[in-house]
Protein backbone atom coordinates (compact mmCIF):
# COMPACT_ATOMS: atom_id res chain seq x y z
CA UNK A 1 0.00 0.00 0.00
CA UNK A 2 1.26 3.45 -0.90
CA UNK A 3 -0.33 6.86 -0.40
CA UNK A 4 0.94 10.34 -1.17
CA UNK A 5 -0.32 13.46 0.62
CA UNK A 6 0.35 17.09 -0.28
CA UNK A 7 1.27 19.61 2.42
CA UNK A 8 0.91 23.36 1.92
CA UNK A 9 3.18 25.93 3.51
CA UNK A 10 1.89 27.28 6.85
CA UNK A 11 -1.41 25.38 6.57
CA UNK A 12 -1.83 25.39 10.34
CA UNK A 13 -5.57 24.76 10.10
CA UNK A 14 -5.06 21.27 8.68
CA UNK A 15 -2.00 20.40 10.74
CA UNK A 16 -2.10 16.78 11.83
CA UNK A 17 -4.77 15.56 9.42
CA UNK A 18 -2.36 13.45 7.37
CA UNK A 19 -0.86 11.83 10.48
CA UNK A 20 -4.36 11.15 11.78
CA UNK A 21 -5.37 9.49 8.48
CA UNK A 22 -2.22 7.36 8.44
CA UNK A 23 -2.75 6.32 12.06
CA UNK A 24 -6.39 5.37 11.42
CA UNK A 25 -5.44 3.37 8.30
CA UNK A 26 -2.73 1.44 10.15
CA UNK A 27 -5.03 0.84 13.11
CA UNK A 28 -7.68 -0.66 10.83
CA UNK A 29 -5.02 -2.91 9.35
CA UNK A 30 -4.25 -4.14 12.86
CA UNK A 31 -0.73 -2.79 13.28
CA UNK A 32 0.66 -3.44 16.75
CA UNK A 33 -0.03 -0.56 19.22
CA UNK A 34 3.61 0.15 20.11
CA UNK A 35 4.73 0.46 16.47
CA UNK A 36 1.57 2.36 15.61
CA UNK A 37 2.34 4.93 18.32
CA UNK A 38 5.94 5.32 17.15
CA UNK A 39 4.81 5.85 13.55
CA UNK A 40 2.14 8.35 14.69
CA UNK A 41 4.53 10.40 16.84
CA UNK A 42 7.18 10.63 14.11
CA UNK A 43 4.67 11.34 11.36
CA UNK A 44 2.97 14.10 13.33
CA UNK A 45 6.25 15.77 14.29
CA UNK A 46 7.46 15.67 10.70
CA UNK A 47 4.13 16.88 9.30
CA UNK A 48 4.14 19.82 11.73
CA UNK A 49 7.76 20.59 10.81
CA UNK A 50 6.88 20.64 7.11
CA UNK A 51 3.98 23.04 7.75
CA UNK A 52 6.00 25.30 10.05
CA UNK A 53 9.34 25.42 8.27
CA UNK A 54 9.02 24.43 4.61
CA UNK A 55 7.59 25.86 1.41
CA UNK A 56 5.31 22.82 1.26
CA UNK A 57 5.89 19.33 -0.03
CA UNK A 58 4.76 15.73 -0.01
CA UNK A 59 4.39 12.99 2.54
CA UNK A 60 4.61 9.44 1.23
CA UNK A 61 3.34 6.60 3.35
CA UNK A 62 4.21 3.03 2.39
CA UNK A 63 3.23 -0.20 4.06
CA UNK A 64 5.32 -3.21 3.14
CA UNK A 65 2.97 -5.93 4.33
CA UNK A 66 5.34 -8.80 3.45
CA UNK A 67 8.16 -7.35 5.54
CA UNK A 68 5.83 -5.77 8.13
CA UNK A 69 7.50 -2.39 7.65
CA UNK A 70 6.14 1.14 7.52
CA UNK A 71 8.11 3.70 5.52
CA UNK A 72 7.44 7.43 5.82
CA UNK A 73 9.07 9.90 3.43
CA UNK A 74 8.90 13.68 3.70
CA UNK A 75 10.07 15.68 0.70
CA UNK A 76 9.69 19.43 0.74
CA UNK A 77 10.56 22.25 -1.64
CA UNK A 78 12.99 24.09 0.61
CA UNK A 79 14.27 26.37 1.98
CA UNK A 80 16.31 23.64 3.72
CA UNK A 81 17.76 23.34 7.19
CA UNK A 82 20.71 25.69 7.48
CA UNK A 83 22.59 23.77 10.15
CA UNK A 84 21.41 20.17 10.42
CA UNK A 85 23.78 19.36 13.27
CA UNK A 86 22.35 22.19 15.34
CA UNK A 87 18.77 21.22 14.39
CA UNK A 88 19.41 17.73 15.77
CA UNK A 89 20.26 19.11 19.21
CA UNK A 90 17.47 18.94 21.81
CA UNK A 91 16.00 22.38 22.49
CA UNK A 92 17.24 24.04 19.30
CA UNK A 93 14.37 25.70 17.44
CA UNK A 94 13.74 28.35 14.82
CA UNK A 95 9.93 28.03 14.97
CA UNK A 96 7.75 31.10 14.44
CA UNK A 97 5.54 32.61 17.13
CA UNK A 98 2.52 31.17 15.28
CA UNK A 99 4.00 27.67 15.55
CA UNK A 100 4.69 28.24 19.23
CA UNK A 101 1.04 29.14 19.78
CA UNK A 102 0.16 25.64 18.58
CA UNK A 103 2.47 24.17 21.21
CA UNK A 104 5.38 23.49 18.87
CA UNK A 105 8.88 24.87 18.68
CA UNK A 106 10.27 23.10 21.74
CA UNK A 107 13.20 21.96 19.64
CA UNK A 108 12.44 18.29 20.23
CA UNK A 109 10.99 17.30 16.85
CA UNK A 110 13.93 15.82 14.96
CA UNK A 111 15.43 14.34 18.12
CA UNK A 112 12.14 12.66 18.87
CA UNK A 113 11.69 11.33 15.34
CA UNK A 114 15.17 9.80 15.41
CA UNK A 115 14.39 8.20 18.77
CA UNK A 116 11.20 6.45 17.66
CA UNK A 117 12.23 5.41 14.13
CA UNK A 118 14.24 2.25 13.37
CA UNK A 119 15.91 3.99 10.44
CA UNK A 120 16.26 7.75 10.12
CA UNK A 121 17.88 9.44 7.12
CA UNK A 122 17.81 13.16 6.50
CA UNK A 123 19.38 15.28 3.77
CA UNK A 124 18.87 18.97 3.38
CA UNK A 125 19.80 21.67 0.89
CA UNK A 126 18.24 24.97 -0.17
CA UNK A 127 16.17 23.04 -2.74
CA UNK A 128 14.56 20.90 -0.09
CA UNK A 129 14.75 18.59 2.88
CA UNK A 130 14.33 14.86 2.38
CA UNK A 131 13.56 12.73 5.39
CA UNK A 132 12.95 8.98 5.34
CA UNK A 133 11.99 6.92 8.35
CA UNK A 134 11.44 3.17 8.59
CA UNK A 135 9.53 1.36 11.33
CA UNK A 136 9.32 -2.39 11.85
Amino acid at each position, binding site marked *: MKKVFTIEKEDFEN*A*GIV*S*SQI*KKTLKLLGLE*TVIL*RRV*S*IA*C*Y*EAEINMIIHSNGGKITFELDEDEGRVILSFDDRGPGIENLEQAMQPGWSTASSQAR*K*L*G*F*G*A*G*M*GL*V*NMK*RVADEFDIHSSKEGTHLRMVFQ
Partner: protein
Amino acid sequence: MKLKDILMSVKASIAYLEDESILERQYQFAFASDLMSDALALVREHQEETLFITGLNHEQTIRTAEMLDFNVVIFVRGKIPSKETVALAKANGISLFYTEDTMFQACGKIYEIGVKHS
Protein backbone atom coordinates in the same frame (compact mmCIF):
# COMPACT_ATOMS: atom_id res chain seq x y z
CA MET B 1 -6.83 6.31 41.25
CA LYS B 2 -10.32 6.59 39.76
CA LEU B 3 -10.75 9.41 37.26
CA LYS B 4 -13.80 10.76 39.13
CA ASP B 5 -11.69 11.20 42.30
CA ILE B 6 -8.90 12.91 40.36
CA LEU B 7 -11.40 15.28 38.75
CA MET B 8 -12.97 16.02 42.13
CA SER B 9 -9.58 16.98 43.57
CA VAL B 10 -9.29 19.86 41.09
CA LYS B 11 -13.05 20.58 40.92
CA ALA B 12 -13.00 19.88 37.20
CA SER B 13 -15.99 20.38 34.93
CA ILE B 14 -16.88 18.24 31.94
CA ALA B 15 -16.38 19.70 28.46
CA TYR B 16 -16.87 16.38 26.67
CA LEU B 17 -17.46 12.96 28.14
CA GLU B 18 -16.96 10.08 25.72
CA ASP B 19 -18.45 7.51 28.03
CA GLU B 20 -19.68 7.60 31.65
CA SER B 21 -17.66 4.49 32.46
CA ILE B 22 -14.41 6.38 31.98
CA LEU B 23 -15.06 8.14 35.32
CA GLU B 24 -14.61 4.79 37.07
CA ARG B 25 -11.44 3.97 35.16
CA GLN B 26 -8.05 3.96 36.93
CA TYR B 27 -5.40 6.50 35.98
CA GLN B 28 -2.00 6.07 37.60
CA PHE B 29 0.02 8.67 35.72
CA ALA B 30 -0.09 12.22 34.44
CA PHE B 31 1.94 14.43 32.18
CA ALA B 32 1.65 18.22 32.22
CA SER B 33 2.90 20.65 29.59
CA ASP B 34 1.79 23.45 27.31
CA LEU B 35 4.35 22.24 24.78
CA MET B 36 3.02 19.49 22.57
CA SER B 37 6.52 18.54 21.39
CA ASP B 38 7.49 17.83 24.99
CA ALA B 39 4.56 15.47 25.43
CA LEU B 40 5.40 13.74 22.15
CA ALA B 41 9.04 13.36 23.21
CA LEU B 42 8.75 12.53 26.87
CA VAL B 43 5.71 10.29 27.38
CA ARG B 44 7.07 6.85 26.64
CA GLU B 45 4.77 4.36 28.33
CA HIS B 46 1.44 3.79 30.13
CA GLN B 47 -0.30 6.19 27.72
CA GLU B 48 -3.74 4.67 28.23
CA GLU B 49 -3.45 5.23 32.00
CA THR B 50 -2.03 8.74 31.65
CA LEU B 51 -3.87 12.02 32.05
CA PHE B 52 -2.74 14.90 29.89
CA ILE B 53 -2.83 18.21 31.77
CA THR B 54 -2.33 21.34 29.67
CA GLY B 55 -3.12 25.01 29.34
CA LEU B 56 -2.96 24.86 25.55
CA ASN B 57 -6.54 25.15 24.43
CA HIS B 58 -6.18 24.25 20.78
CA GLU B 59 -7.05 21.52 18.31
CA GLN B 60 -3.39 20.52 18.20
CA THR B 61 -3.75 19.44 21.84
CA ILE B 62 -6.29 16.87 20.67
CA ARG B 63 -4.10 15.81 17.74
CA THR B 64 -1.23 15.28 20.18
CA ALA B 65 -3.47 13.26 22.50
CA GLU B 66 -4.63 11.21 19.51
CA MET B 67 -1.06 10.41 18.43
CA LEU B 68 -0.09 9.42 21.96
CA ASP B 69 -3.26 7.37 22.69
CA PHE B 70 -4.27 9.60 25.58
CA ASN B 71 -8.00 9.45 26.22
CA VAL B 72 -8.34 12.17 28.88
CA VAL B 73 -7.25 15.82 28.68
CA ILE B 74 -7.62 18.27 31.59
CA PHE B 75 -7.35 21.95 30.69
CA VAL B 76 -6.07 24.26 33.42
CA ARG B 77 -6.56 27.99 34.10
CA GLY B 78 -10.29 27.72 33.36
CA LYS B 79 -9.81 27.20 29.65
CA ILE B 80 -13.03 25.91 28.18
CA PRO B 81 -12.28 24.05 24.94
CA SER B 82 -13.73 25.55 21.76
CA LYS B 83 -16.45 23.89 19.68
CA GLU B 84 -13.82 22.82 17.13
CA THR B 85 -11.64 21.27 19.83
CA VAL B 86 -14.60 19.39 21.31
CA ALA B 87 -15.63 18.14 17.86
CA LEU B 88 -12.14 16.78 17.20
CA ALA B 89 -12.04 15.16 20.65
CA LYS B 90 -15.40 13.54 19.98
CA ALA B 91 -14.18 12.18 16.63
CA ASN B 92 -11.25 10.58 18.44
CA GLY B 93 -12.96 9.35 21.61
CA ILE B 94 -11.06 11.70 23.92
CA SER B 95 -12.80 13.06 27.03
CA LEU B 96 -12.17 16.69 27.97
CA PHE B 97 -12.34 18.41 31.36
CA TYR B 98 -11.36 21.84 32.64
CA THR B 99 -10.44 23.29 36.00
CA GLU B 100 -10.03 26.84 37.29
CA ASP B 101 -6.76 25.77 38.93
CA THR B 102 -3.43 26.89 37.50
CA MET B 103 -1.07 24.25 36.15
CA PHE B 104 0.90 24.29 39.39
CA GLN B 105 -2.18 23.97 41.59
CA ALA B 106 -3.73 21.20 39.47
CA CYS B 107 -0.50 19.20 39.32
CA GLY B 108 0.06 19.60 43.06
CA LYS B 109 -3.42 18.39 43.96
CA ILE B 110 -3.37 15.48 41.51
CA TYR B 111 0.10 14.44 42.69
CA GLU B 112 -0.96 14.66 46.31
CA ILE B 113 -3.77 12.15 45.86
CA GLY B 114 -1.36 9.58 44.42
CA VAL B 115 -1.08 10.07 40.67
CA LYS B 116 2.52 9.79 39.51
CA HIS B 117 4.61 11.27 36.73
CA SER B 118 4.24 9.26 33.53
